[in-house]
Structures are given as C-alpha cells and as structure tokens.
C-alpha cells in the first residue's frame, strides 16, 4: 500500500483550493467595502459628491458580494 493510495489527493486539493478561494475572496470584497466607506467619507468632506457616490456604490456592491459569497459558500460546503 503506497502513500499515494492512502491520501485522498483530489479531495485534499479541492479543500486547499476552496479554502484559499473562500478566504481570500471574502477578505477582498469586504476590504473593498471598507475602502468604499472610507473613500465616501473623505470625498464627501472634500465636497466631491459624484466621486463620493461612486465610492458608496462600490461599498454597497462589495458588501452585497460579501454576503453572497458567505451564503453560497456555506450552502456549497455543507451540502454533499
């Protein structure tokens, strides 16, 4: 019996890929949401309403994406 036959190679690889994708994906979109909120505050203070609206939109989209990724991730990972 070799080590290769003992290790669930494909499943382990998929675990690694899913962990990296989910971990980095959520982090990235949530960071963009915070970036959007911070930029919105700064741009509003500097009286640049159009750019501020753009930052707010980016923040909203990123926040919705975060929630979406989390929900889809939980459903995908806990169903088999």
């Amino acid at each position, binding site marked *: *019996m070799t*080590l290769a*036959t*003992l*290790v*669930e190679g494909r*499943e*382990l690889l*998929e*675990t*690694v890929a*899913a*962990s*990296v994708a*989910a*971990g*980095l994906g*959520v*982090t*990235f979109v*949530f*960071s*963009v*949401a*915070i*970036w959007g*909120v*911070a*930029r919105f*505050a*700064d741009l509003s203070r500097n009286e640049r309403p159009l750019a501020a609206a753009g930052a707010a939109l980016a923040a909203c989209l990123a926040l919705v994406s*975060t929630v979406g990724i*989390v929900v889809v*991730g*939980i459903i*995908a*990972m*806990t*169903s*088999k």
Partner: protein
Amino acid sequence: MSSDVILVIVVGTALAFDFTNGFHDTANVVATSISTGAARPHVAIALASLLNFAGAFISISVAATVANDVVNADVITPTIVFAGLIGAIAWNLITWSFGLPSSSSHALIGGVVGSAIAAAGFDAVIAEGLVGKVLIPALVAPVLAFAVAGLSIGLIYRVVGKQRPGTVTRGFKYGQIVSGGLLALAHGTNDAQKTMGVITLALIANGSLAAGADPPLWVIASAATAIALGTYSGGWRIIKTTGTRIIKMDTAQGFSSQGAGAAVILASTHFGFPLSTTHVINGGIMGAGAAKRFSAVRWGVAGNIVFAWVLTLPAAAAIGALAYGLTRVFGTSALGPVVVTLASLALIVAVFARRAERGAPVAASSG
C-alpha cells in the same frame, strides 16, 4: 441488557466529552473577537453557542468518517468505544493539568484507535481512513490556515492601507462579528460531528444501527445541545489565559484569522475530514501575526502546539488501550465500564481538587 447498559454509559460519556469540547473550544472561537474588542464576552459566547448548535445540524460528513472510515465497525464493540472515550478524556485532563495545548479531536480518534487495536489487533484500524482522512489533513489544515490568513492580511493592507485607521478599524470590528460567527458555525459542523460519529459507531457496534448508517436525529440533536451548552458555559478562565497567549492583534488581523479558520474548517467538513479546530484557529492567528511582523508570533507556543500534536494521538491511543484492558479485567459484562467510569470520575474530582488547592490558572487545552 448488559450491552444496553454499556451503550447508555458510552452515550453519556460521549456527550460529557462533547460538553467539555465546547467548554474548552469557546476560547478558540471567541478569544480573537474579545481581544480586539469586536464583541462583548457574553454576547460573543452566546452567539458562538447558538451557531455551534446550528452548525452541528448542517452536515454529517465528518460523523460518517469517524463512524465508518477510521476503525472497522465489524470488530468494534460498545466497550471498545467506551475505552476510547476514556483515553480521550484522560489525555485531555492530563494536558489540561500540565497546561499543554492539545487537540480533543485527535485525542478522541487516538483513544478509539488505541482501544480498537488492544481489542482486535491492527486489523481493526482502517489505515486508508486514518492516514488519508485524519493524519494528512491534520498536517495540512493548520499550515493552510496560516497561509490563507497571511495572504488575507496582506490583501487587506494593500486595499485599505492608505485609508483612515478609525474607519478601517470600525469596519473590521463589524466584519469580525460575521467572521467570528462563521468560525463558530464551522466549529459546530466539525467538532460536534466527532461525538455524533462515536455515538453512531457505538450504536452500530451494539446492533442498534446497520453498518454505514447515518447518525439518527436524536444523536445529532443531543451532540449539538451538548456542545452548545459547553460553549455557553464557556471556560472563562481559559478565555482569559488564551487571550493573554494570543498575539496582540488589530481588528483586520482578527478578521483575516477568523475568516481563514472558518474557510479551512468548512471546506474540510465538506469532504468529511475531522480536523483539530484548535490547530486550524491557532494556525490562522499565527499567519495573520507573522504576515505583519514575523517576531510578533510567540514561536515557543507554536512549538508546544506541534509537540502536543505529535504526542496526542499515540498517548490517547495508549490510554485507550489501557482502559480497554482494565475494562476487560471484569469480563464482558457492564461491570467493567461501570468500575472504570467510577474510577475516572474519582480521578477527575482528585485532579480538580488538587488544582483548586494550588489555585493555579487553567490553561487552554482543546481541539
């Protein structure tokens, strides 16, 4: 009749183990949120308890692995499962007493493997399952959490590094409530299932369930309740100890370590890998710390974790084997498990009394 008495003892012991698992692991799940001020202790613990309960219901892959893929269900008896549980509890108590951080999950699997070998030889162990589903993932998971948390914190600093610190800190505080919740949910999916798996194994061994059967609803509900109650009881002293041992981290690091831990545990649960959640969470914390400043991590603590990891499986296996031998001294009746249970309870009381006399702080030891 005798086997039913043993089965009741096994179920009771398994649920007691599950309660202590939740009790110990509360620290791992909530310490990051509490230490960064993202959540108040009582709120964090109540939320973790609720999500641990919910998590226990949403998957049975890990329970199936523990029940069917680690030891050969055909040769397992309720007494073997009982002795395995005693091995796990005893090792947890020993490491707790010495302040060694260890894994309850590895102790549980080690205990059952040890008692199975003592009873039926090495044929009782399914090598493919033990190596492929337990040992290799146990090695990979903490390293993976370390890497994901490290990459995450790098990504965060790149995206929001030039923004006002106040807004960023507040934002990640809110984020930590979600990532902490996810971690608690992930913890429930993986850790509560190990107890479900052990009870299912005992039911199969007793002939109450067919081989390869899924855990019945009452097993899932009782395991979920035990781990949730254990979490809610929260080892406050353990949380305090863990809080001082963890690196001083900002909310972004807390978010990335919790997110990485949750991602790794949930992905592993999907494939039925029973992990040490303690090792995964600690791996994430160290990754988030090391990515910012390598020396921020207490590498001595990391060394202790690795040392305890290496020791846990064989030590719990040895105690499990010993417990099986002791049980068999009294024959195959229920007398053996009853005597060993009473002896174990007396030992637990003695250990607690000695600790209380010394007034020594309680160390984190979990899984």
